[in-house]
């Protein structure tokens, strides 16, 4: 069996400052990895490099492409990289406005991804878009509404539908529940958990919320100042943390 993603010695510098340093790991099909750590620890930089939106200073990110097996994504041609992003990957941004087109309808936001991979039949595209709106619990009557009229939680669910409609194998999520109030968060988390399990998706989820990490991630990577300080099974890292920084993170959480 081949890992879906193999990261070796990944480093990204911003001038003289470290974004992330010497990160290595493998992600397997169906596996959800959480990246935790406080603001500025390099989580989003790492996610950017993994999803080919940022160039690394050194190191490689290999992805198991359908044609050639493990291939360094940063060495791919721009068209192939774009094709990969459209067909195999999904990216869920913290701010749904970054991942949606706010000027076109909800249905078009979902349908657009299908058209990008070659779907042309209007009726079929609309039917699939409607089906995905239902899966993310958005009322089918809203299919022709602009996202501008949606609440924050609905926007985030719409962004998820837009990403999953093409059945990606790997999905990157940056603080997917950030900025949502807790009841909306719970609904979104339950939805994400179910979709990830049902579709057998692999995912990399960046979050600073340890409860979100516990619910979604199979394993964790703890980052501090751009470096990975601890890794392991999610419940083991949270219940028996070894690194001083992880212990500090875990003990700093307020119990409601």
């Amino acid at each position: 069996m081949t890992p879906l993603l193999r990261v070796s010695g990944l480093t990204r510098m911003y001038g003289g400052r470290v974004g992330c340093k010497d990160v290595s790991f493998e992600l397997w099909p169906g596996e959800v990895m959480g990246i935790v750590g406080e603001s500025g620890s390099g989580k989003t930089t790492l996610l950017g490099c993994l999803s080919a939106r940022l160039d690394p200073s050194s190191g490689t990110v290999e992805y198991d492409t359908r044609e050639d097996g493990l291939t360094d994504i940063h060495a791919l041609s721009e068209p192939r990289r774009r094709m990969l992003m459209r067909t195999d990957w999904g990216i869920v941004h913290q701010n749904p406005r970054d991942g949606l087109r706010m000027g076109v309808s909800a249905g078009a936001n979902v349908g657009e991804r299908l058209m990008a991979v070659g779907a042309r039949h209007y009726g079929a595209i609309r039917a699939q878009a409607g089906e995905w709106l239902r899966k993310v619990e958005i009322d089918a009557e809203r299919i022709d509404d602009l996202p501008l009229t949606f609440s924050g939680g609905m926007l985030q669910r719409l962004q998820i539908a837009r990403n999953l409609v093409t059945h990606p194998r790997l999905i990157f999520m940056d603080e997917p529940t950030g900025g949502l109030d807790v009841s909306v968060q719970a609904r979104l988390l339950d939805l994400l958990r179910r979709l990830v399990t049902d579709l057998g998706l692999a995912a990399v989820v960046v979050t600073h919320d340890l409860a979100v990490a516990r619910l979604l991630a199979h394993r964790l990577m703890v980052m501090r100042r751009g470096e990975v300080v601890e890794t392991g099974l999610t419940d083991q890292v949270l219940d028996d943390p070894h690194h001083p920084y992880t212990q500090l993170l875990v003990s700093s959480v307020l119990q409601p």
Partner: protein
Amino acid sequence: MTVMIEVAALSKSYVLHTQGGVEIPVFAGAALSVGTGECVTLHGPSGAGKSTLLRCLYGNCKPDAGAIRVRHEGAAVDIASAAPRVVLEVRKRTLGYVSQFLRAIPRVPALDVVAEPLRALGVDAEAARTRAGELLARLRIPERMWHLAPATFSGGEQQRVNIARGFAARHPILLLDEPTASLDARNRAVVIDLIGQAKDEGAALVGVFHDDEVREAVSTRIHSMQG
């Protein structure tokens, strides 16, 4: 009898970095062997490391040294050194854990909480729910509550939902961390029954039981631990 768990030279200590780096040794050189149809009770004073040993067996605690070989699908897997995805696979098929605390997931109804370990094994929804319903009924959770999320249940009800979940998938190995704590006599008897049944079906069980009556009723062997 087949050996299902073989613990060798296991050592564990906690280092509390946020409290001046205090080191708390828990146990050193621990050994334990558990076979099919056995229920081994870990016994010893508070602080002897009973729960820590159970948690190590489940991969929830990371030992400093030693091996925990578990028989998984006919082959030995060392939980102490296995990759996370391997530990998760062993938990799915081989290793069950029953504690008194339920980690409720928002919006998931009790019946699905209990059925989930079976669904993960690929059992179809109908059969998984039937088995879940039987267990909930045995543990006296009224049927009108099955379709509600357990977050709003009382402590005792949540505990019984968690016990039902732990027994649902009939794992070949079951780890029991005080499953009967704070249960009333009737429900305690149900849990004793469930444990007996698992033993008869050939499961290997390791448990911590504070209740003398439960301990005497279920143990085939006592493994004594000193703090």
